């Protein structure tokens, strides 16, 4: 994340950062450590505690040709900016005021014992809003390439960084040195298979891969698709996979009712119903706020085992 921001700021002097304690302090997750000294206080702006205010200001700066990247200390704090994002920023292109090239990024997701207010996934708060894009990478390499694309994109992008990415062992990879960008709106097939399609994103990609290994022991070859961008949704990739396997399981860390699984389900009804050999099912977190206690949080989230159970069920169907 840090690398992508740094390189984009070097490449394009229209890019600048705003957020709480991102300057001298370097950000709650230290993503912007060293930025203030290098880029100066005009491009690394410490703001008052006012997520709505600085997101709205980002819109104004974007109107003037800049490319703001604003940080939410935790993505949970995007809620005070919900209004300006959905009513002003998302509608700008449609209203004839031009698209607003800005990125709102920050840490999301659970497993860190953050409790109800430092663990949320915010995609479904914005998924219903035409005009926004939503990106949710599953690993540092994708994160870097997708963040670059998000910054270069002319539309407002909500960029969710799972806290697991900042430090999880499976994410310790050396990133390519070259300036690569990963296009928005394209899913990636992480594992090929022909018995079952598992569509997922974010941290759950890793859990689904563990489940796929387990399923392979039963001779079940699961295909695992990492959506990477949630809006616009890469329905072609999902439909292609479903047409191959006939079975679809959607896995998301976000809570159940009103999660993205619903939209995927109806799109596959529209696009691939003839190929479905079983119901479209989902494995998700429970419909509740994120519990504070670790024991409860682990139970609340989907486990690899849950995915295996559902996968076996679907393949036998």
């Amino acid at each position, binding site marked *: 994340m840090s690398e992508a921001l740094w390189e984009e700021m070097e490449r394009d002097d229209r890019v600048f950062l705003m957020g709480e304690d991102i300057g001298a302090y370097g950000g709650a997750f230290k993503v912007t450590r060293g930025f203030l000294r290098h880029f100066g206080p005009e491009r690394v702006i410490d703001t008052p505690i006012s997520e709505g*205010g600085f997101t709205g200001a980002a819109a104004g700066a974007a109107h*003037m040709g800049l490319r703001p990247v604003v940080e939410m200390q935790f993505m949970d704090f995007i809620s005070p900016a919900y209004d300006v994002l959905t009513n002003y920023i998302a509608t700008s292109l449609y209203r*004839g005021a*031009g698209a607003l090239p800005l990125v709102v990024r920050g840490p999301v997701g659970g497993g860190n014992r953050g409790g109800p207010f430092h663990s949320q996934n915010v995609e479904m708060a914005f998924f219903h809003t035409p005009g926004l894009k939503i990106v949710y990478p599953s690993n540092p390499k994708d994160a870097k390439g997708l963040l670059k694309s998000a910054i270069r994109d002319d539309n407002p992008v909500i960029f969710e960084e799972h806290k697991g990415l900042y430090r999880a062992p499976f994410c310790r990879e050396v990133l390519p040195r070259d300036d690569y960008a990963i296009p928005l709106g394209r899913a990636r097939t992480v594992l090929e298979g022909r018995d079952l399609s598992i569509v997922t994103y974010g941290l759950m990609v890793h859990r689904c891969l563990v489940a796929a290994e387990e399923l392979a022991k039963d001779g079940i070859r699961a295909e695992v698709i990492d959506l990477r961008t949630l809006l616009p949704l890469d329905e072609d990739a999902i439909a292609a996979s479903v047409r191959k396997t006939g079975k679809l399981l959607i896995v998301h860390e976000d809570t159940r009712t009103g999660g993205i699984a619903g939209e995927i389900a109806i799109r596959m009804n529209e696009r691939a119903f003839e190929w479905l050999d079983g119901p479209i099912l989902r494995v998700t977190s429970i419909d509740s706020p994120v519990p504070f206690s670790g024991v409860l949080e682990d139970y609340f989230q989907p486990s690899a085992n849950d995915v295996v159970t559902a996968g076996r069920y679907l393949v036998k169907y």
Partner: protein
Amino acid sequence: MTPEVEALTPTHLRDGALEPAVIEDLLYQGFQARLLERSVRELVRAGDLDSRFAGFTVDFRSVVLARAMRCGADGRGDVCCPGPLSPGPSLAFGVTPLEFLRYAGLKRTSASAARSGGRSWTDLRRGLIGWSGPRGTMTQVLAGVALAFRQRRERRAALVFEDWRATQTGAWHEGMSLAAARRVPLIVVLARSGAGKMNGGACGLSDIAANYGIAAVSVSEEPHVQLFQVAAGARRNAVEGRGPTLLGLAAPREGDRWAGHDALVGWAIARAGLSDRILKSAQKDARIGVEHAVQRLRREPECVPRDALAPVHTGAAPIPPWTRSQVPQPNDPTHFEAPGGTPVR
């Protein structure tokens, strides 16, 4: 002149020494606004404009305030959001009556094919940003515009019009806090409508300003010369790095709302040596412009439904709705393909 006004007024503008070209412009725009106001009401009555515009008025003071900015059509002038005082400031920023009517009339030829309403008019080259969202939002957005000016060290200012009660919103508070903290070149006009009533716990303009550590001034005198001067002074402070200013605008006077314009005409003749010839020609130009616009409006094409499908992302085709009278036919292969790619059934 109160000490606050004194402190804000730029030296070269003291004692009403407005440049003749500016005076002429102001009078012209005033005539235009008056005629536009009358024409809109007539158009509504005739059914050529939507009944939403039945109560349409222009506040001349907003024209005067906006004219004190540096208005240009090259994308390098000041930037203004007329907000609830639309379209007054737009006229000062060079919007023609025809352009306004196209938008108000929801015509295909309006800047955004009339996808959104008159107050949402945006033209960045002219420095106009339209309104969208609840009260307070536009102060946030214009704070960001001003932030960009400051960051690029441009001598430009941002001007935003808000209702008085907008100060009660969290959105306004956050926008103002940010603007004040960064000392960006922003001028916020707080207009009392006189229509509603105040429900907030606060407060005088100076109390509000003190909370953000910024300058504030209220003006209400006619013939609005001082209004112009104060705005120009606030602008000078803004571009010179002295931070935001709040300008309080009293409720419009009862009775003849155009008395301020009349007074300015009187003042211009008596005190600024305006010739009768110039006055007449300003009147005439205004009339021709508005009449042309009204005639023309009737011949402008209506919106076409496909504009509702305008893309919401750049570079993307609009997503077709699943079913519309024409699309899709049950066998349309783009919607339902059978295995092997042949249409279903």
